[in-house]
């Protein structure tokens, strides 16, 4: 997802006259696309199709039903929608995405981008570097670092101890709080980079003109800066939402979805159902629902923002 910063802005090269004549158009135009399309069909569309079909069977992980599943129609979905565990997981997913991506990463990313503009350059570079390192680090390493941070004997409790606050078993008593903070720590860099770029493109003259007219800094931010970068904000909200929807490793390493299912978001629940309880068909149904939610978000994003494809 680094491309936000990397996409070259230079003008398109096309638009001039001669180009290879259209004879052998198929060989020139379609043939180069074949490997890509083949890979996408087998390994991307394949699992999606398989997911739709598999969710309608009672596939098990091992044993007879693994090789010869029965077609059971919408039973998995009926069971799923009747299951309190599923709705709990839906709620946890909404909480996780809402608190860590929509609010946490966005607000903190915006704050960092704003504050950095007025801070001393070395400080800005150091803090920006730290935030980006947390994001570039492999997910599992970040997960271990945060696991240690929130452990009962970990750094957080030690720091709180200085202020006379008793030890809390964060990962057991407040697993959602821990994974939400962890995901903010891990993912804020993306929002920060997006907003850094967006704020740099707001012409300072407009804000200055408003200041001359007597607008305070708060007013200037909400009346001028925010409306001018609203496209970046909605793009960023959408992308962070979709990325956070698929987070598995962070939660799996820190809490394993536990205690019980108290931090099982949908991807974690799908994994647990399929590989812990051997209900592959049921797990597949959960995966399909998650995928459908992601697909709806993607379509809304593409429809609403109409990213340029040309």
């Amino acid at each position, binding site marked *: 997802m680094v*491309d936000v910063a990397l996409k070259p802005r230079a003008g398109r090269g096309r638009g001039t006259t001669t180009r290879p004549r259209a004879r052998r158009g198929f060989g020139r135009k379609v043939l180069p696309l074949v490997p*890509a399309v083949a890979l996408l069909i087998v390994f991307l569309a394949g699992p999606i199709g398989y997911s739709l079909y598999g969710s309608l069977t009672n596939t098990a992980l091992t044993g007879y039903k693994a090789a010869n599943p029965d077609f059971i129609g919408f039973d998995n979905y009926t069971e799923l929608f009747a299951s309190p565990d599923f709705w709990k997981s839906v709620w946890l997913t909404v909480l996780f995405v809402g608190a860590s991506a929509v609010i946490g990463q966005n607000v903190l990313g915006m704050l960092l981008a704003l*504050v950095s503009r*007025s801070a001393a350059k070395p400080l800005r570079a150091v803090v920006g570097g*730290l935030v980006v390192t947390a994001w570039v680090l*492999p997910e599992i390493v970040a997960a271990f670092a945060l696991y240690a941070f929130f*452990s009962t004997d970990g750094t957080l409790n030690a720091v709180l101890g200085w202020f006379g606050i008793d030890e809390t078993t964060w990962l057991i008593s407040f697993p959602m709080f821990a994974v939400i903070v962890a995901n903010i*720590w891990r993912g804020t860099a993306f929002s920060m980079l997006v907003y850094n770029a967006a704020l740099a493109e707001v012409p300072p003259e407009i804000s200055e003109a408003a200041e001359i007219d007597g607008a305070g800094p708060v007013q200037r931010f909400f009346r001028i800066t925010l409306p001018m970068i609203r496209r970046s904000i909605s793009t960023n909200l959408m992308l962070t939402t979709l990325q956070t929807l698929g987070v598995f490793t962070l939660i799996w390493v820190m809490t394993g979805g536990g205690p019980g299912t108290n931090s099982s978001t949908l991807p974690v629940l799908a994994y647990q159902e399929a590989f812990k309880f051997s209900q592959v068909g049921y797990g597949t149904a959960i995966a399909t629902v998650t995928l459908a939610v992601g697909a709806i978000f*993607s379509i809304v994003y593409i429809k609403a923002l109409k990213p340029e494809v040309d």
Partner: protein
Amino acid sequence: MSLVKNVTPAAEAVVAPTRRQRAALASPRRAPSRWISTAALVLIGVAFLVPLAWILLSAFDPAATVGIKIPEDATFDNFSSVFTVDQTLRPLWNSTVISLGTAVITVAVSVLAAYPLSRYQMRFRRSFLYGILFATCLPITAMMVPVYSLFVYLNLLDSVPGTIFFMAATSLPMAIWMTKNFMDSVPISLEEAAWVDGASAMRALVRIVLPLMRPGIAVVFIFVFTMAWGNFFVPFVLLYSPEHQPAAVAIFNFFGTYGSVAYGKLAAFSILYATPVLVLYLLVQKLSGGSFAMAGAVKG
């Protein structure tokens, strides 16, 4: 959010005299606001530093715990004890094979696909690109359970090439998207000259377009490599024998086995595993700066 202020000295100079008084009245507020923004930045910086510092300090501390502390006697013991074939070398080698394989396949396939998408008018071009964009957004990790079933069906479970192809396919939408954007910024006029001289489209792609977009290709390559290197969930589900598992999975198993006793070794392993990615990120920063200069290939 009283921290926003981007009034430059030059802007203040053009303010009319009557207003200037007002600016002067407002300016004492600016000093504390700068102070607040510095304090906020330091606080956020410390919050981001602590977990990172824990990894670094623990790696050199033979008696590391989950709490952060300065090692009493810093040594390389943790590094030397994890530096064995089974523990780190083979998993890192597997990571290298999987990530390189994924990146090579992805880049080759996306360069081929991006060329007609960037250069020709086609009826299905727009819908294809929207499809690619849509696929870029899908939460692929949610799909690992059906992918597992599909791999059982295709008899590809625990197969490194199978995993590589799957990872290539999942990074393909993003890679095609990026490659096409980089290719768009290579001016077509150079190719037109080649076409006039009788070069085929493929020859023009290999001899003219690719050399001009080398930094862009490197960025896509490193991007895909990094994603594959850091991927835990896909190999965790698809590869089960230790001889095939990459470092991400090995590190997780190591944690599961010795987790509560060997935090120092875990941290040392983490550093060995994370360093290549951090280096590559810095490289991308350098390269993506260079890619903007490509337009300079055409003059006059």
